[in-house]
């Protein structure tokens, strides 16, 4: 989206959030900026209408006039202050409301995006939408936008008044403004250019620090501290060069503009007095008359106007980079909001049921029995009991065009069976599991769940029927209980305890400071890896779905916890259809069927004994002749 379009959309959306408020804000801004500008005008009026005549005719002659001016000042300033009070208070709310809307819209969008998005973008990049981009937008909405509008309005007022007074002098100020803009874009451009490279070199420094922190133990063991310092210094020095230059340009802009303004002021004074002295005819919207007659006040107030004028131009040039940054952030946010959500054309749903005389009847209350409700095109409605029978037939898949990841893969998993997937990293084990719950869409072939093509099943219902225990356990902040109940919010306390017991997690949970109510700080950092796995098993047990996807952890946990985890897993697997990405041979050995995968194909299949007999790849893996990951 172009900058202009982004700005337009931002303003439009802000306006639409609260039309009345925005209109009031705009009117208030007009009053506020008129007030600011009127200081110069009042000086002109006081000089021309009060001081000058009074010097000739004495004070009493202008007393009434002066009183009128005073009243006018009070009225104008009261309006201006009221305006400022109004717009600042209203904008504080409108701005924050809008930011809140944006944050919520972003999060809601994010939750609805396909997994693809999360796999393709680094977590840091996604986070930066919420941190950097929303932050710049906040700056823009709470500060720059209003200030910018106000500055623009003031400039317009000033130009209007200047034109009213005198064309010649306005043209002169215009030339000054042009020079200032030129300087701003030159110096400002250089500054922002160097700021960019400064950001980049800071990134390099950060990357280096992170790498060294991560490898701190290695650095120390190899006594590489001095070398690390040297390399760090070099990067830090580059950053310094960029930063010093960028700031140099940034810092000088204001004094330079300020004093160009001063020089403009002086030149204007000279020009004005020459005009007055030589009685040059003045032309302005206020009329045509020789300078000498009534316009000394004009020259004086023009000087004051030109001062305000350059002040406002300085403001603009100060705000401009912030506005540019905010628009960059906003266009990234709008891009995120425009991404296509995961769509769901499924119509088969999962419902509670009871079985009576071999017939399935749908009920509202929870029965622990589930069925697929399948409306057909001809208006018929059929029910099929949820069993957990999964069949992949001739499935092809690719993440990116022309790079097949799965080739003609067929897997049959009947209710209660365990299917072990083995093979090297990248062989396609995880990909298979990604297709079953439709994190990704297959390219060719079919996946059926209880005989129903999974494309016809509503995604939430499909996923509800498939539990998952992943290597990366991802717990959420909240209590242990919240985490176990995560997949079934209405689970009773008894259910939670039951699940914890199934997973072998209940023992250690009881030893936590507050048992099930122990608050896990972010991402469960205060639990050991093994304990986190136990909780994630309990979470799956509590959700109680007939099909399970397990990705066994490879990270070494101690033998005792491992035995607990293993036992918990085994209990969880009982009576369920399980796809397991296996790393433990005991798991593999007990599987009903083992799929040995290589480069997206199933190269061997069978149970442990038959595969050992085959003396193929599985045999080599098993005897440790090949590395398995």
């Amino acid at each position, binding site marked *: 989206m172009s900058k202009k379009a982004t700005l337009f959309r931002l303003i439009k959306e802000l306006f639409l959030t609260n039309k009345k408020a925005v209109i009031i804000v705009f009117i208030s801004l007009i009053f506020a900026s008129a007030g600011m500008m009127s200081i110069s005008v009042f000086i002109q009026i006081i000089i021309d209408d009060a001081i000058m005549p009074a010097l000739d005719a004495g004070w009493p002659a202008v007393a009434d006039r002066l009183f009128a001016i005073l009243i006018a*000042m009070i009225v104008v300033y009261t309006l*201006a202050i009221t305006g400022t009070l109004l717009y600042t208070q209203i904008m504080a709310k409108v701005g924050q409301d809008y930011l*809140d809307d944006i944050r919520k819209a972003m*999060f809601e969008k994010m939750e609805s995006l396909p997994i693809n998005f999360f796999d393709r973008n680094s977590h840091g990049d996604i986070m930066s939408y919420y941190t950097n981009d929303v932050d710049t937008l906040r700056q823009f909405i709470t500060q720059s936008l209003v200030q910018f509008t106000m500055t623009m309005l003031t400039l317009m007022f000033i130009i209007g008044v200047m034109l009213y007074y005198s064309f010649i002098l306005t043209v002169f100020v215009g030339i000054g403004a042009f020079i200032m803009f030129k300087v701003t874009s030159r110096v400002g451009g250089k500054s922002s250019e160097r700021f960019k490279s400064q950001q980049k070199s800071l990134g390099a420094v950060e990357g280096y620090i992170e790498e060294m922190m991560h490898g701190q133990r290695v650095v120390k063991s190899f006594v590489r501290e001095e070398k690390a310092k040297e390399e760090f210094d070099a990067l830090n020095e580059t950053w310094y060069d960029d930063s010093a230059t960028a700031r140099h340009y*940034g*810092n000088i802009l204001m004094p330079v503009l300020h004093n160009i303004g001063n020089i403009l002021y002086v030149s204007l004074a000279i020009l004005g007095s020459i005009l*007055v002295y030589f009685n040059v005819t003045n032309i302005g919207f206020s009329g045509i008359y020789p300078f000498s007659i009534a316009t000394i006040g004009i020259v*004086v107030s023009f000087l004051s106007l030109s001062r305000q004028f350059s002040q406002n131009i300085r403001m603009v040039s100060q705000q401009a980079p912030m506005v540019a940054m905010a628009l960059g952030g906003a266009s990234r946010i709008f891009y995120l909001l425009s991404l296509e959500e995961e769509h769901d054309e499924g119509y088969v749903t999962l419902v509670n049921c009871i079985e009576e005389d071999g017939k399935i009847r749908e009920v509202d209350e929870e029965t622990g029995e589930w069925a697929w409700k399948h409306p057909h095109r001809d208006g018929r409605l059929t029910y099929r009991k949820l069993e957990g029978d999964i069949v992949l037939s001739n499935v092809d898949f690719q993440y990116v065009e022309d790079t097949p990841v799965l080739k003609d893969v067929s897997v049959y998993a009947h209710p209660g069976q365990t299917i072990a997937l083995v093979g090297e990293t990248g062989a396609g084990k995880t990909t298979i599991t990604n297709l079953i719950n439709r994190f990704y869409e297959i390219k060719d072939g079919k996946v059926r769940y209880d005989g129903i093509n999974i494309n016809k099943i509503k995604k939430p219902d499909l996923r509800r029927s498939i539990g998952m225990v992943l290597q990366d356990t991802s717990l959420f902040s909240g209590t242990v209980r919240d985490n176990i109940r995560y997949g079934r919010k209405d689970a009773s306390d008894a259910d939670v305890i039951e699940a914890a017991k199934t997973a072998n997690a209940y023992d250690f949970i009881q030893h936590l400071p507050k048992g099930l109510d122990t608050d896990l700080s972010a991402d469960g950092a205060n639990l050991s890896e093994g304990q986190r796995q136990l909780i994630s098993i309990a979470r799956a047990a509590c959700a109680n779905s007939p099909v399970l996807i397990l990705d066994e952890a490879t990270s070494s946990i101690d033998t005792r916890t491992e035995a607990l985890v293993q036992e918990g897993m085994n209990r969880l697997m009982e009576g369920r259809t399980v796809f397991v990405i296996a790393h433990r041979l005991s798991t593999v050995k007990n599987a009903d069927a083992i799929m040995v995968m290589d480069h997206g194909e199933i190269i061997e299949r069978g149970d442990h004994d038959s595969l050992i007999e085959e003396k193929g790849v599985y045999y080599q893996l098993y005897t440790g002749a090949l590395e398995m990951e």
Partner: protein
Amino acid sequence: MLKTLARSVREYKRESLLAPLFVALEVVAEIFLPLIMAVLIDEILARDITNLVQISLVLVLLAMMALYFGYLGGKYSAIASSGFAKNIRKDIFYNVQGLSFSNFDRYSHTALVTRMTTDTTNVQNAYDLLVRVALRAPLMIIFSIIMAFSINAQLSLIFLLALPMLSLGIFLVYKYAIPIFRRVFDKYDKLNKYVQENIKGIRVVKTFVQEEYEKTRFKARSEDIRDDFIKGERLVVINQPAFQFTLYVVMTIVAIAGSYIIVNTFGGYDAAGNPIWGDLSTGQLSSLIIYGMQMLGNLMMLGMIFVMFTIFSASARRITRFLHEESDIRNPEDPITHVRNGAVAFDDVYFKYTEEAENWVLKDINLSINPGETIGIIGGTGMGKSSLISLISRLYDVDRGRVSVGGVDVRDYDIATLRNAVSVVLQNNVLFTGTIADNIRWGDEDAPLEAVERVARIACAHDFIMSFPEGYDNPIEQGGTNVSGGQKQRLCIARALLKKPKILIMDDSTNAVDTKTERSIREGLRTHLPDMTKIIISQRVGSVEDADQIFVMDQGRIVDSGTHETLLETSDIYQETHAMQQLGDDADE
């Protein structure tokens, strides 16, 4: 706090002093402008242009001087603040390099990175402000007051009334607003953490179909933040009408009263014949107004600087706390710089990571290892194996007893000497960006390629290295993503061997290597490096069964020791572990 930070100014002292000096000069040049402009205006009013050229020249000269000084001030403050930030970052980094692990355990990686990035940038911004604006604003205020008084003292009294009133207003606003903003930024951080959790756990969210639940939770948090922000913003923006009110009242009074004075010598004359309310010309009236605006404007600026400094002080506090952190482990006086051999002994060693900890991590450890022996240490996670070996290279100091290497207490060695003699291959292997050869050469930067190849062969890494398109010159990607776990481990072993250590410690560092290769690595070590002491930590019995001595650890103690055969008979834990692993055959993993 400031003292510690000031130490980082160092070679930028000159610039740090020049910047405010030039800023002050700029202010001086600038402050005279309105005064002289008043003369100019009065000339115009009097329609007398005889002095016009001189006055204009003075004005332009002053403006040029102000421009030049402003330029220099900006330049030097850029150098000073960037240099200061560079030095702070450097000091932090150097300090980290010097710290021991017991210090290090107290800080997370992200905290350290934040100290060197965000916090340093905050301090830099504050410093830049300090050397420029923080001086400029008060100077402007003071000089403007002086100038105003020199024009018309009586009329200027109004400024003396307005300034403290507005200051009080600004102060009160910030006093109440800053705590709100602190709180809301804290909540904001939490919200971001929550988002991060969701990004990381998106598969779990989707699997358990909890999108709607997460949205509701987020909504509540976001709205809470919004409400706080509105409260804070509404308070802060009161500054603006307050400023305008003061400004307009002052301007109106000055303008009206000023014109009275100009025309009337308002208030009559005193005994000496001087006007009581002073003298004023029209030009001076407009200068007074300019000075008044400068005063009030700069006062607002001071308020903003005040806010900046609250942000700065939080960052500065965090940085100094870190700079004050001193290493717990220091070189002894007269350190020993030669390690005789690879003998290792533990005598009655007790150890825990923090003084406050209740339980010992290691209790009553006694062992003695002869040079060249192969030693196995076995036991579950958290039983103290890794702690035990980290004492050998003195990553930590013992609390009781002593650890000796080559017959000498490790605390008597020069730390670098000791660590060079002890090579540790760690559980989590870290490779660095660079080529494969670069990574192996971490052990010895000047090693010739033959030496690199030799250790790679012993570590069974040579063959797979050669299978990369560029062999030893093949780059390792950041985080080592282009080699498998087992390959990574073998490169790390090679790297450790290149150091020619007297003692090699492998901390569960072959668990991703297949059993056959693992066996040949052990054989290679035994035949090629017979004098090097080899300590192997593992959870697999298979990795240690051919060791000369095996120690079994449990709950921080060595519970059994002996050879594979004797342990199978005497040690319950060893038997149990062995049996459990036999079940999965030793092909496990």
